[in-house]
């Protein structure tokens, strides 16, 4: 992509502030948090550890961001079918949001099993790694979906 092409913001006539149902600033914050959390989840997935201390070190950044992530997901609850001009987008957002919630619960459970043991068993390490991968995928999909309706946010992500 040429530098001038990178400066072009795609025109999306369907997405006005009213259509989005959530203020753009909150959507931008949600996308930022989703992308940040995805990076930490990917790190957990790609860099398995074997001692509880090492796991705590790598999982902590992810765990401390969970409450703010939950708040951002709560903000997205305003996007609903019957309220949004683009029903397809609203349905996909709700599905992706629900998937992120499910994966967050999964990673919390597997991480708590992991960090409570002195030495991690292979099974537990594989489970955490797999849950982190699934979480990273779910976070990436939700973030991309939000950005797809909001050119300014899509531009920020590049």
């Amino acid at each position, binding site marked *: 992509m040429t530098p001038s092409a990178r400066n072009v913001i795609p025109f999306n006539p369907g997405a006005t502030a009213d259509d989005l149902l959530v203020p753009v600033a909150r959507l931008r914050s949600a996308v930022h948090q989703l992308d940040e959390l995805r990076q930490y989840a990917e790190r957990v997935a790609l860099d398995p550890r074997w001692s509880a201390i090492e796991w705590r070190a790598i999982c902590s950044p992810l765990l401390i961001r969970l409450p703010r992530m939950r708040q951002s997901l709560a903000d997205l609850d305003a996007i*609903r*079918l*019957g*309220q949004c001009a683009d*029903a*397809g987008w*609203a*349905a*996909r957002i*709700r*599905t992706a*949001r*629900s998937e992120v919630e*499910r994966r967050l*619960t999964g990673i919390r459970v597997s991480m708590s099993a992991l960090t409570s043991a002195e030495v991690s068993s292979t099974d537990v390490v594989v489970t955490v790694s797999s849950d982190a991968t699934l979480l990273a995928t779910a976070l990436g999909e939700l973030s991309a979906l939000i950005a797809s309706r909001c050119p300014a946010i899509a531009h920020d992500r590049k």
Partner: protein
Amino acid sequence: MDDPGSPTPPESQSITPDGLAEFLAQHLASLADVLMSVDDNPRLIDASLEDVHEIAARLAKVVKRQVFGHPDFAAEVLHWDIGGMFEHARTNESDNYEVYADDLERHQRRQGKDLAVADSDADKFAIVKRRRAYLETLFDLNREISGIIDILRA
């Protein structure tokens, strides 16, 4: 959930059949949007089930009140024996929603408990059947209301 559209057309006593048809068509568009949005991927309806039911129930309520509750229009549509079919579609949607919502909730609870694959697959298969049955009731309701709109426009 807030009602984004007014359930009562302006001056409902003096509204013409065309005016009522137009009003219903606007409401029906919400349901048609839902059906189109989940057409490629019916699983999308799971996370929005409550909203979808809300849209369908609100639409059915508007039809019941504005068409079957209006002496002139009720006589017109009853002449075509459409009242019974509409009522059947309305109750079918409501009944199937109840069963689907219960099964979905149970499935999500069991999923959270990390069931064995066999149990989980059995759950999934039950959900697929419930989802399909519920979608059929939405298409039926959509068809019945479209028929009422056609009669009002004729």
